[in-house]
């Protein structure tokens, strides 16, 4: 495994960028996705439309195009690196899918929970935060888990815009060493180092919540 040893620091740098982009995008898309999910279940027609348009736009355009849009167009106005452009695109793209998962979770909670809370004097926001969302997330966990794993794999989009991630570094190592097969095996294993513990943790969470229910 001399290829691995020789390029260890390069792989590690790629791994670090992939991990970082994944964490930023995960937190960001969870927050954004939840906001747009809530907008879609409010009584306000305007909020519902905005939420809906957002989800439809980012869910139905290839991630690569959103990434290039930020890297080529937006970066002209607001200076940003490929890493930043890619991470923003990944966040927006994933948040549309998360909004759908969270919205489905909210809709699965019986209407009586919201009515009980509102009749009890809570505002819509309080009822959402304290009563509806905690129950909705429980329901949405398997589907959110899928989105998070997809997100980590989709972060390879950064390679297209010089994002210094695993895939980007892998491409360089492969080009220099001519050993594409070994290089991409190593890259694949590095992705597993993130995605396997993530899958395991989500399964664990699912079992734990099932027991409590």
């Amino acid at each position, binding site marked *: 495994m001399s290829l691995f040893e020789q390029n260890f620091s390069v792989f590690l740098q790629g791994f670090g960028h992939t991990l970082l982009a994944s964490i930023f995008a995960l937190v960001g898309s969870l927050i954004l996705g939840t906001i747009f999910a809530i907008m879609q279940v409010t009584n306000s027609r305007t909020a519902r439309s905005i939420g809906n348009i957002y989800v439809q736009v980012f869910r139905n355009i290839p991630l690569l195009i959103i990434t290039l849009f930020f890297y080529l167009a937006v970066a002209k106005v607001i200076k940003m690196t490929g890493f930043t452009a890619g991470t923003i695109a990944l966040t927006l793209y994933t948040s549309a899918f998360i909004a759908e998962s969270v919205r489905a979770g909210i809709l699965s909670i019986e209407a*009586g*929970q919201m*009515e*009980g*809370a*509102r*009749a*009890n*004097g*809570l*505002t819509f926001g*309080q009822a959402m935060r*304290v*009563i509806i969302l*905690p*129950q909705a997330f429980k329901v949405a966990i398997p589907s959110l888990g899928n989105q998070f794993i997809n997100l980590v794999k989709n972060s390879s989009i950064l390679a297209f815009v010089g994002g210094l991630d695993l895939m980007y570094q892998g491409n360089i190592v492969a080009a220099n060493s001519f050993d594409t097969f070994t290089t991409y095996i190593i890259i694949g294993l590095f992705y597993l180092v993130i995605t396997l513990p993530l899958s395991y943790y989500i399964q664990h969470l699912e079992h734990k919540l099932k027991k409590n*229910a």
Partner: protein
Amino acid sequence: MSMIEFKDVQKYYGDFHALHDVNLKIDAGETVVLIGPSGSGKSTLIRTINGLEEIEEGQLLVDGFDLHDPKTDINKIRKNVGMVFQHFNLYNNKTVLENIMLAPRLVLHRDEAENKRIAMELLEQVGLADKANSMPAALSGGQKQRVAIARSLAMKPKALLFDEPTSALDPEMIGDVLDVMRDIARDSDMTLLVVTHEMSFAKAVADRVIFMADGRILEDSSTEAFFENPTEPRAKKFLSQVEHH
């Protein structure tokens, strides 16, 4: 002073005329029972009082606030008007004690120690102090409903609305819930409006009985007058039907 006042209220669901020319005045401290066949608009009427249903026409004054006025902050009314539902609607993700303490904490900003003391007192009152740390899923229907009543009482409301509180309960559970409601009617000076099919409860507790059918109030009389000598043929028929059960 009237706590709740309907003036020529109309309510539609699409083409369906759910509330038809409703005029009704309930004074502070009164206990009023609302009866009628299913689909008569009883639940719709009671749900307009805390804004769970909106009215299309007329005026609805609750605790001095006009519900049909867009400027009215509905949360101010809900602070003072509690509701007990047919299906309890307890918070499934909170313990019994938390169910009771949540709204006083978030809405009234009641001191935490005081909040807990009041909540435990109320659980004591409904006979469920030993269930304080249980989750709602672990309770029977009757126990859930008594917790729901305690949750409403914790806000110290001026009025309490009961929307068929015993209709979803097994027969052996109904008595405990009605006992709790009876005590409230006897011991408190709250305004109570109860939609129910429990005629013995109505006879024992109500100051007044309102009979509804097809979205209209057909009869509004003192309890005694209503049960002894109902004037409306439909009320007579309804009474004979429910009393033969």
